[in-house]
């Protein structure tokens, strides 16, 4: 089982990196790009038999390590190891 974990700054937290990227895009003429938020992406290989356990394990490590709950939130996507989203 594989889990993809997407960690981003909470909407209430200013993202200076995302803001700078958005400004650069506007300078390049991509005026249709609105706000940009930068985040982190993790791929976890999880050696557990069921999707429920995979989800739980991924959430546990995201809460404890991958994301800082003070400033960040996360989203998990599961897929089987054969590839492709379930």
């Amino acid at each position: 089982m594989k889990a993809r974990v997407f960690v981003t700054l909470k909407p209430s937290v200013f993202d200076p990196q995302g803001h700078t990227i958005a400004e650069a895009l506007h300078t390049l003429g991509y005026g249709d790009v609105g706000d940009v938020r930068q985040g982190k992406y993790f791929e976890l290989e999880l050696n557990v038999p069921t999707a429920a356990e995979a989800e739980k394990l991924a959430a546990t490590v995201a809460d404890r390590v991958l994301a800082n709950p003070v400033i960040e939130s996360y989203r998990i996507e599961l897929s089987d190891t054969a590839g492709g989203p379930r």
Partner: protein
Amino acid sequence: MTFAVVVFPGSNCDHDAQYALEHVLGHTARFVWHKEPSLGDADVVILPGGFSHGDYLRTGAIARFSPVMAAVQTFADAGGPVLGICNGFQILLECGLLPGAMLRNRDLRFHCEMVRLRVERTDTPFTRACTTGQQLRIPIAHGEGNYYAPPDVIAGLEAAGRVVFRYVDERGEATDAGNPNGSIDNIAGICNPARNVVGLMPHPERACQAVVGSADGRVIFESVVQALADRGAVAGAR
């Protein structure tokens, strides 16, 4: 007086701290490797600056799980004085001994420069030899020192007098011009509710001799020596 200076892989101000404590101030400073389960006979614990574990994931995020941090937690819970400097402050935030988190500096630049700090509180072991409102010239060197906490946490810190240091301008006021990194309310340092754990982004250990540009940092270390001497005198009198 024995100081424990905790060394993580990537710490780079550990020797600055040891130099200031031993060679300038005349105390004993022992390095404690992050895998050690104990702090030995330390009277004070210093978490020094640097880039522990390469700042991978988030600043301080990996270091907080080092074996020595359990001992630091126990030491802090027992009232022992703990000072986190720069990356040490970031580690204290990650492990929850202090509230909040650090964001990238608002201009995305790494700032290595002398700043002006105002001492807001003298009722911590690391500021008791200061006077309230005293200004200190101490350098910063960080890319992620933009202190953030949710509004209710900031309000709680302010109400409880737990903001220990603020960045100020040349007139001593906490203005935007005096704020090098975008920290909320110009916060440069805070303490825990019991006031024995203090974290700050500036580097007092780099400002202990006039020859390096400022000796204003000495008062931070002299404060804790005085605090412990007073505590010892009280204990001895019992």
